[in-house]
C-alpha cells in the first residue's frame, strides 16, 4: 500500500468541488499527508487506509473499542470502495459533514448506516452500527451497559423511522422522520465551524 503514491487533484479543482477555502484545504492536507504521530506506514504516500482510521479513533476513544465503528466510517468515506481513502474522498466527506446542507448530511448518515449499500437499512445493519457505537464507550460506564441496550435502542429507532413498518428504513423515510425531529435537526448544525 505504501508504495502506491497518490497525488491529489489540483487545489483549485478541490476548492471548486468542496465547500472549503484554499487555506482550509491546505491545513487539512497537511494533517492528511502527515498523520503524526500515527505510524507512517501508509502515509505520506497520499492515501489513508482503514488501519489509520482505527488508530485515530482509538486515540480519541481510548476506553472503548472503536475499531468496528472506524470500519463502518471508513466504508462511508471510501466512496469508490478501493480500500483506501484518498485526499479527494476525504475532502468530499468532510465537505458534506461540515459544510453541507442538512439534506446532504442526512444522506451521508444514511449511507453510513446502510452497510451493504443497498438503499435499505435493516434491523441487523442498525444493530451492528449500534453495537459499534456502544463499544466505543467501553466497559466502565454509568449506568452499567446492559446486554440488550443496543437492541432496545434499535427498536426505538425503528419505531421512529420506519413509517410503513416493513422492517426496513428507506432513504425517504429516514430523511422525512429526521426532519420532523427537532433534536436531530438541531444537532446536525452542531459541527458547523469545526475547521
Amino acid at each position, binding site marked *: 500500500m505504501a508504495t502506491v503514491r497518490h497525488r491529489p487533484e489540483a487545489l483549485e479543482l478541490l476548492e471548486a468541488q468542496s465547500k472549503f477555502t484554499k487555506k482550509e484545504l491546505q491545513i487539512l492536507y497537511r494533517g492528511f499527508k502527515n498523520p*503524526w504521530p500515527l505510524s507512517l506506514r501508509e502515509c505520506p504516500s497520499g492515501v489513508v487506509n482503514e488501519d489509520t482510521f482505527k488508530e485515530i479513533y482509538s486515540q480519541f476513544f481510548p476506553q472503548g473499542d472503536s475499531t468496528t465503528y472506524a470500519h463502518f466510517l471508513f466504508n462511508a468515506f471510501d466512496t469508490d470502495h478501493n480500500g483506501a481513502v484518498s485526499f479527494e474522498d476525504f475532502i468530499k466527506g468532510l465537505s458534506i459533514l461540515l459544510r453541507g446542507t442538512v439534506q446532504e448530511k442526512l444522506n451521508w448518515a444514511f449511507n453510513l448506516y446502510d452497510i451493504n449499500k443497498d438503499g435499505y437499512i435493516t434491523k441487523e445493519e442498525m444493530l451492528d452500527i449500534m453495537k459499534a457505537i456502544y463499544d466505543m464507550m467501553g466497559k466502565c460506564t454509568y449506568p452499567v451497559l446492559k446486554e440488550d441496550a443496543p437492541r432496545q435502542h434499535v427498536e426505538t429507532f425503528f419505531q421512529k423511522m420506519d413509517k410503513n413498518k416493513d422492517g426496513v428504513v428507506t432513504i425517504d423515510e429516514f430523511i422525512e422522520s429526521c426532519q420532523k425531529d427537532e433534536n436531530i435537526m438541531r444537532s446536525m448544525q452542531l459541527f458547523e465551524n469545526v475547521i
Partner: protein
Amino acid sequence: MAAGVAAWLPFARAAAIGWMPVANCPMPLAPADKNKRQDELIVLNVSGRRFQTWRTTLERYPDTLLGSTEKEFFFNEDTKEYFFDRDPEVFRCVLNFYRTGKLHYPRYECISAYDDELAFYGILPEIIGDCCYEEYKDRKRENAERLMDDNDSENNQESMPSLSFRQTMWRAFENPHTSTLALVFYYVTGFFIAVSVITNVVETVPCGTVPGSKELPCGERYSVAFFCLDTACVMIFTVEYLLRLFAAPSRYRFIRSVMSIIDVVAIMPYYIGLVMTNNEDVSGAFVTLRVFRVFRIFKFSRHSQGLRILGYTLKSCASELGFLLFSLTMAIIIFATVMFYAEKGSSASKFTSIPASFWYTIVTMTTLGYGDMVPKTIAGKIFGSICSLSGVLVIALPVPVIVSNFSRIYHQNQRADKRRAQKKARLARIRVAKTGSSNAYLHSKRNGLLNEALELMGTPEEEHMGKTTSLIESQHHHLLHCLEKTTGLSYLVDDPLLSVRTSTIKNHEFIDEQMFEQNCMESSMQNYPSTRSPSLSSHPGLMTTCCSRRSKKTTHLPNSNLPATRLRSMQELSTIHIQGSEQPSLTTSRSSLNLKADDGLRPNCKTSQITTAIISIPTPPALTPEGEGRPPPASPGSNTNIPAIASNVVKVSAL
C-alpha cells in the same frame, strides 16, 4: 489523548454526525471557539539560522519550551521572531522531533552538548527514537565513566580534613603513591614476594653432592637457611595481612575478597607445617601443601595493574571461555571415540581406551603433536588429520572475543591514567593562563589607580601612562572592580613594583602582605581542584569574622568636596559597604559568586581570610582634604579608613 492527534480532531467531530440520527436526546452545545487563531507560521531564529514552522507543530508537545508559553520569553518584538542563542545544528534535531515525533541523536554531536540542549528545550532524552537510542546510551555511559574517573582522581587529590588512623592506613595500602611510607611498604612487600618465590624455586635445584650421599636439592642441604628465609617472608606477609584486616573499612568484605584469600592461602602452609611437623603420617599431605606456596606469586597482582586487568578480563569473558571449554570437550570426545575405534584393529596400538585417546586428541587439536601416540591405520590417519585441522578452528574462534575484551579494558585503564596525567598538565597550563589574565586586570587596576592619583596630582601628561586596554578588557576589568566593591574584598596585588608598607596604623585587620600571600598560596594549592562550596562551608568561622570585620567598615558619605572621579569611587565604596554590613548572610553567596565568576583570581584566598593590605602609592597632598572633609565615622571603634587616608595610603583593599 496524544497532543498531536488534535490534528485529526476536526475529522472525528465531523464524523460524529453519524451518531446524531440515532440519538434519543439532544446533544450538548459545542464549545465556542473564542479566539480562533488561524494557524500561522512561526519564525525561530537560532543563532542567525532561521527555522520556520507552523504554530500547531510546536504545540504538539505542550510540556516543552517551544510548545508552551515559555517561548514567549524569547520573542523579539522588533523582528517578530523567536530568537534563541543556541546551537543551530542541534536545534535541527529538536525541531524535527516536533515535526515527526521522533527524536534523533546525531552521531557527530558531543553527548554533553546534546544533553545540554535537550535540557534547555525541556525535552527528556528518554524519548530518543529506537534508531538512535543505543548509540546515545553508549556514549552517555562512556562519558559518565570518564566523569567518574575524573571525580575519583579529584577526590584522591583532595586532602581530606580528618581521616582516622585506620582510614589513612587503608588509603596507604590502596594507593601507595599517597605517602612515602606507603611506597616503602609497597616495595618491601614486593621484594619479599619475589624473595619468597625465588626461594621456593631454588629449593628444588640440586645443589652439589655431599660426600657420601646422593645429590641433594638445595632445600635439604641448607635447610636451616631456607627455613629462616621462609619464616621471615611468612612473618612479613602475616603482618601485612593483619594490618590490612585492621585497616579495612568493611572487614567482612575484605575477608571475602580474592586478594585476601590469596594472602591466606599463601601463608597457611607454613603455619600448618609448624603445627604438624612431628606427625609422620600427614607429612605427605604436608608436602602437598607446600605447593600452595606458589600462590604467593599471585600477590604480585597488587603490584601490577596489567595482571589485575588480565584477571578482570578473564572474569568478564567467563561465558566465552565457558563456550570454548564446552566446544573443545565435545570435539575431544567425538574425535577420541572415532580414533579409538579406528585404531582398534591395529596391533600394539597405544589407543587402549577412549580416555587414553583423549590425550592424543588434545595434543593433536592444540597442534602440539608430541608423537607419543600416533595412528597407524589409514582410517586413523585420516581422522587424525581431520582432528588437527578442526582443532585450530575450534580454538581460534572464541579467542578474538577474549582478546578484544582484554584490549578494551586495558585501553580504558590506560585512558584513565593518560587522562590523569594530561589533566595535571592541562590544569597547570590553565592556571598559568588565568594568572596571566588576572595579572592583566591587576595591572590595569593599578594603572587606573595610578592614573587617578596622578590626575589628582594634576599632571595630565602622565595620564596615559600604562598600557592601553581594549574596550572589552576595560569592561571586564570594570566588572571585576564592581565585584570587588560589591563584596568589599579585593584581589591581591602581588607585584613587587608597588611597595607594600605594613600598616603604620595600629589596626588588627591589616597583616603583612607577604605573610598573607603565603597563607593564600598554601590554601589555594590545597583547595584548587576541589569544588568550591565545601571549602566555603568548611570555614564558617572565618566567614563570620569576615562579616563582623566588614561591618565595622565605615560608610563614606558622598557629600564631600572631592574631585568627580574620586567621588564616584567613594560612592561605590560606600554603597558596597552598606551592603556588606547589612547583609552578612549573603556574603557567602556573593563570595561564591565571586568564586564562580572569577576562576583565575585565586578565588580560594577569599574564603579563607579577609583582611586588608595596604598598598602605598605616593599620594598627593590633595587627598588630605578628603580625609579632613569626611565626617567622623558612623560606627565607633572603626578607624580603618580614616587612618588609612591620613597616612597617605590608598586603600586598595585585599584579602
